[in-house]
């Protein structure tokens, strides 16, 4: 029996508070293993204007490289209290912040390992379909062999690579269009 997919629509400008208030932008309470990091994601439109009414979601593996999900059946530790999901709206500066731990590496279906990365969903007024992208870490061992980055034109890879800014803070601008347009993925 085949059922027709429900089409996507914009989140609109007035998404209700529960979408952000009941989900943590702080993913890693005390006791969770791993290197503490803060991600600062900023959102821009095609003209370079910041987007203050966007919603960003992140999904990541824990510091051991294990996803908290039944389809990740590998024998690696799960951290109590770390789900790996965060949601935050952008503020008047177009920024959303997430306190988390640096994810471990996860395997690639055709073999080998992916570099450490965080999966990102972008929603906003005027965005009709969820925009999926990734965050990688500048200087990370593994970037050169990452199979996903290899799918991306060398000149555009930098749009996926966060830069370190002070102790544990990583910044990544996300441009929905324009000269610095971020790479988005069809997953």
């Amino acid at each position, binding site marked *: *029996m*085949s*059922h*027709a*997919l*429900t*089409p*996507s*629509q*914009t*989140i*609109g*400008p*007035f*998404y*209700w*508070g*529960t*979408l952000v208030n*009941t989900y943590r932008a702080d993913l890693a309470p005390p006791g969770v293993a791993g290197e503490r990091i803060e991600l600062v994601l900023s959102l821009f*439109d*095609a*003209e370079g*204007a910041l*987007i203050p*009414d966007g919603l960003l979601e992140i*999904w990541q*593996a824990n510091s051991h490289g294990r*996803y*908290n*999900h039944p*389809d*990740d059946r590998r024998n690696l530790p799960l951290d109590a209290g770390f789900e790996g*999901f965060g949601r935050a709206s952008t503020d008047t500066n177009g920024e959303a912040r997430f306190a988390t731990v640096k994810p471990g590496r*996860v*395997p*690639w*279906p*055709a073999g080998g390992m*992916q570099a450490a990365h965080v*999966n990102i*969903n972008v*929603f*906003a*007024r*005027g965005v*009709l379909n969820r*925009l*999926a992208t990734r965050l990688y870490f500048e200087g990370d061992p593994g970037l050169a062999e990452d199979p*996903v980055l290899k*799918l991306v034109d060398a000149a*555009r890879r930098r749009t996926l690579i966060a830069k370190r800014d002070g102790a544990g803070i990583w910044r990544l601008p996300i441009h*929905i*269009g324009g000269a610095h*347009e*971020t790479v*988005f*993925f*069809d*997953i």
Partner: protein
Amino acid sequence: MEKDIYQRPATGQHPLNLSPAYKSTVARSPKQPAIMLPQSLSEITGPSLGAERLNALENDLTRQRIGEPLGERIVVHGRVLDENGKPVPKAMVEIWQCNAAGRYHHPGDQHDAPLDPNFTGGGRVRTDDEGKYEFITIKPGAYPWKNHHNAWRPAHIHFSLFGPAFATRLITQMYFPGDPLLAYDPIYNSVPEGARTRLQASFDIETTRPEWALAYKFDVVLRGRNATPME
């Protein structure tokens, strides 16, 4: 390339990102095509958004404040399925909407219509083992927006679902059958013609509660697993 775990949407299912009749899409849509990504663990896993996050009565938007909100009370219910017709159990369904007068309980909404102190317009529920969900709410009003001259959004309820994986994430809107504003709405009409009626709920006399509330049925279909998944 490895076989996809989750089916990829055929063209004609979702809106194009650039849908110029909806003006905000012009500066908020990528120009470059999305890069096809084989599905790894990163894409086939996703948050469970478990029951521990839910409070009682979050699916009854008429009982979240001291008094009852004004407007026409309705039941909105349905099933969350995948493309193979399989129910999606224990899936978090989140909704938000304006009040009966067409005003959102949101600081950014400046529409000159009354706020209702008894209606915040947000609700959440998890589907049961058969993928069923139900909300009690009030029928949202139409509201004007500045997209073009005399632009009005048809009455709608926003829906957010994650489903089983990062790949199945969906945000959409539910509309009401027979709404004359649908014909004029660039957001509804951004969906290709053969697919847009899927966003209309159906009036459901069976579920209507006599002397109390009308009912609407809205099934949501998420991407399904491929027939022979790689296990």
